[in-house]
């Protein structure tokens, strides 16, 4: 399975498909962090929100980069389940690296992160960075799940794939608003950003709730993906 993960990552990076999400992410990060210096936690919280659709798009591009017949060959070679998991793993590895770079960008070249204001109850710089890592780690599996559900192996056509990707990304924002009637329908990307932009360190219970919520949502999404892949070659 690791051989297939490496093969898919190599194929994606060698093709020109990798470039578009990178350029888009750089533009997005420039907009988020270009307006002035900010505390680490809220800056990273909102960067995770803005990167979510880009990560989902990137996952879809990676999974769609392989011709259908080659995907079937891989499936025959290592088995259907491992072929599907290998695709998700490749997309996750890529997304984690992507997020790591995205977290460095506000330090260099943008110099957009500052420490807590003297006398405030803002989280320390180290705590802000840890919370930022958490926000991105919560966004990665959810974005990969959305990208996988929008991939050609599931949606079969470009139109359907784009519809799933765009609708999913919009719903994550809209249903994630604090006034949403059904926030549990989407992963808590917006809720995480809100928790990180509070004046003080979020309570441990809040963080565990966000982790549990993401885990359940991703389990349902990946379960659906696996089920759809079983019925579609």
């Amino acid at each position, binding site marked *: 399975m690791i051989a297939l993960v490496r093969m898919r990552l190599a194929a994606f990076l060698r093709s020109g498909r990798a470039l578009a999400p990178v350029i888009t992410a750089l533009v997005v990060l420039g907009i988020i962090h270009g307006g002035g210096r900010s505390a680490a936690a809220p800056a990273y919280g909102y960067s995770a929100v803005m990167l979510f659709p880009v990560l989902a798009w990137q996952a879809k591009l990676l999974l769609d980069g392989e011709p259908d017949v080659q995907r079937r060959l891989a499936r*025959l070679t290592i088995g259907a389940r491992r072929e599907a998991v290998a695709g998700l793993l490749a997309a996750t590895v890529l997304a984690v690296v992507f997020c790591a770079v995205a977290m460095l960008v506000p330090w260099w070249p943008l110099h957009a992160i500052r420490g807590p204001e003297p006398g405030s109850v803002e989280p320390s710089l180290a705590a802000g960075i840890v919370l930022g890592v958490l926000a991105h780690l919560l966004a990665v599996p959810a974005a990969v799940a959305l990208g996988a559900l929008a991939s050609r192996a599931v949606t079969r056509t470009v139109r359907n794939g784009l519809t799933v990707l765009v609708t999913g990304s919009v719903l994550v924002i809209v249903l994630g608003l604090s006034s949403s009637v059904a926030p549990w329908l989407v992963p808590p990307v917006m809720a995480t950003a809100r928790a990180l932009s509070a004046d003080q360190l979020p309570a441990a219970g809040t963080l565990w709730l966000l982790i549990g919520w993401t885990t359940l949502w991703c389990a349902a999404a990946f379960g659906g993906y696996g089920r759809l892949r079983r*019925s579609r070659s």
Partner: protein
Amino acid sequence: MRFDQVWFRYARRAQWTLRTVDATVEPGATVVVLGRNGAGKSTLLQLAAGVLRPVLGAVRDRPPIVGWVPERFPADQAFTAGQYLTRMAALRGLRGSAQAEHWIERLGLAEHCHTRLADLSKGTAQKVGLAQALLVTPGLLVLDEPWEGLDSVARTLIPHIVGEVTAAGGAVLVSDHRGEIAGLPDAIHWTVADGEVHTGAQPETDEVVVEVAVRRTAADATVARLRAEGHRILTVRAPGGPWPGRAEPQDAEDSTRAADAAGDGVTR
């Protein structure tokens, strides 16, 4: 391997492509699947390989290692031929590139080893497709029109490869609409027609395909002489395509082959 009352269609409201397929492939057997374009040969082969899942029924006792040569090799990939085969070998759990290099040598791919898949000719890409299926000796080898685009040297290799797989106890399913089956004299014939698979047809063991290059000026006379001797003329072709107005094929099936043929001035 056994097709157990297999039904298949591509969409819920579509017509059945295959109905009530009930057939067995014994280890060591070669099965040639015949049928017109669109009859369902590729569908049957993909069901056998496990690429497609039956809508009803099941394919049972499929060997664990399946080699599948698709009708069209997926050449739109960012690898060279050598890189691709090495990576496919890694997928098969093979360490190093020894097996990949073996098949690169055997199929005459050495000079294309560093060529990107997308830049390969159709026949060379088909050889890469053949090589990836043989990196590990398969228990079931499924060849979907394997002769398509191959040169004459590579075409003659296929019966040898099929023989090696069956000698090792593997089964081979191969589809053919170009009359190349004469190279597989011990093959069992299945015919796909009207969504049904008819098994048990006996193979013709007394014919082989011989390609002969002759001078243009001698083509008509050679064709006439061969016909007079009772041979079937499948195709007469010249560089760049069929030879219009010369040595018309003997039946409609042959016309298809004549239209497909391309290459040097060759009488078959």
